[in-house]
C-alpha cells in the first residue's frame, strides 16, 4: 500500500497562494518548502530547513502573536507525523486564524520515497478529527482547493486539510537557507527591527 493521491502538489500550492494578500506562510522542511518557493518567494514566507516536526508549532506561535493575520502552515505527511503531539497542543488552543495544510503523498519524498505511515494506512485527517480540530478537510479533487484557499483567508476557525498529492518529486526550487536573513526579512515586513 502506498496511498497519496492524484493532485499535482505544485498546482495545489500555487492555487492556495493566489491573491495571498496579508497571508503569512510557514513551510515544513523538504518538498513543501520547494513548492511554496516555486510559487514565488515572499517576505511573508518562513521556510524551515530542519527541526522536523516543528512547522505546525511555529505556525501556532505566529498565529497567537498575530491574530489579525491569516497563518497557513504547508507541510508534508512525514514532517507532521514527527510532530503528531503538536496537533493535540494546537487543538487545545484553537487559534481561529491558523490553517494547517498537509500535502500527503504517502511517502518520505526527500529521502528516497520510502512509504510513510500515511502511505501505510494512518489517516491524518481522522487523527485531526479525533484530536478535536473543529474543521477538517480531506482534499482529493482539484475543486476542493479553492474552498480551502477561502477558508485559509477567512480566519473563521482553526482548520486542517489533508491534500492527497501524487508521490513524485518535481525539480527542486530552493528557498534561501540563511535562516537569520529569512527571519529578519519576515519580521521587518511585520514592522519589527532586528536586534
Amino acid at each position, binding site marked *: 500500500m502506498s496511498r497519496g493521491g492524484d493532485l499535482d502538489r505544485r498546482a495545489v500550492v500555487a492555487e492556495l497562494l493566489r491573491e495571498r494578500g496579508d497571508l503569512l506562510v*510557514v513551510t515544513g522542511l523538504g518538498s513543501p518548502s520547494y513548492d511554496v518557493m516555486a510559487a514565488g518567494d515572499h517576505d511573508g514566507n*518562513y521556510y*524551515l*530547513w*530542519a*527541526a*522536523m*516536526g*516543528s*512547522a*505546525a*508549532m*511555529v*505556525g*501556532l*506561535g*505566529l*498565529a*497567537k*502573536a*498575530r491574530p489579525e493575520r491569516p497563518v497557513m502552515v504547508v507541510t508534508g505527511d512525514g514532517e507532521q507525523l514527527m*510532530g503528531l*503531539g*503538536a496537533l*493535540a*497542543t494546537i487543538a*487545545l*488552543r484553537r487559534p481561529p486564524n491558523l490553517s494547517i495544510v498537509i500535502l500527503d503523498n504517502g511517502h518520505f519524498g526527500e529521502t528516497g520515497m520510502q512509504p510513510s505511515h500515511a502511505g501505510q494506512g494512518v489517516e491524518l485527517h481522522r487523527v485531526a478529527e479525533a484530536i478535536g480540530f473543529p474543521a477538517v478537510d480531506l482534499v482529493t479533487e482539484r475543486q476542493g482547493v479553492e474552498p480551502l484557499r477561502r477558508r485559509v483567508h477567512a480566519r473563521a476557525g482553526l482548520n486542517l486539510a489533508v491534500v492527497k498529492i501524487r508521490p513524485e518529486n518535481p525539480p527542486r526550487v530552493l528557498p534561501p537557507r540563511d*535562516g*537569520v536573513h*529569512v*527571519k529578519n526579512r*519576515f*519580521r521587518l515586513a*511585520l*514592522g*519589527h527591527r532586528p*536586534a
Partner: protein
Amino acid sequence: MAADGMGTAVPDWRRDVFDVLKAARVRHVVYVPDAGHATAIRLAEADEEIEAVVLTTEEEGIGYLAGAWLGGERGALLMQSSGVGNCINTLALQACTRFPLLMVVTMRGDWAEFNQWQNPMGQATEAALRLMGVRTWRADEPKDVAPLLRGAATMAFEGDEACAVLLGQRLIGEKEWSK
C-alpha cells in the same frame, strides 16, 4: 519573602521565576509541567496578558517560541531536565535563525535523586545544552534565581541568544518518596 528557621528573609524563588518573566515582558509561557514549576505555571495560566501553553513534548516549545518571535512577541519555555534531551535536534532552529530562546529547567538526577532512571539525562543536561550552543547558568540557592534569570532574559531578548537557567535539586528540595 518567607522567613527561614533563623528568622532571615528567604526569597520565594518559585514566585520570582514568574515575576522575572513578567517583568521581561514575556507574553507566552510554554511548558511541560514539573513540580518545581507549579507556581509559575499557575500564575501564568491565571494571567490574562500571558498565553500559557501546555505541550505534549518539550521541543514543541522551541517551534512555538520561534513563531511568536516572528510575530514580534516574547516567550519562555519551562521544563524538567529530562525534557532537554527531547529538545536537542530542534535546537538547530534557534542556532540557524537566532531568535531569543529563554528556558527554565528544573533539575532531576542532579542531587539526592531517589529514582536513578533520572540520572543519565540529569547528569548530561547542562553539557548537552552547551554542546548545542545554549548559554547556561545554575541556581542552587533561592537568592540566585531572580538575578540569574533576569540576566539570562537580557542576553536572550537583547542578543537573540539561547539561554537556560537550571534550577538545581538542592534548591527545589528532595522529592518525598514515602507512601
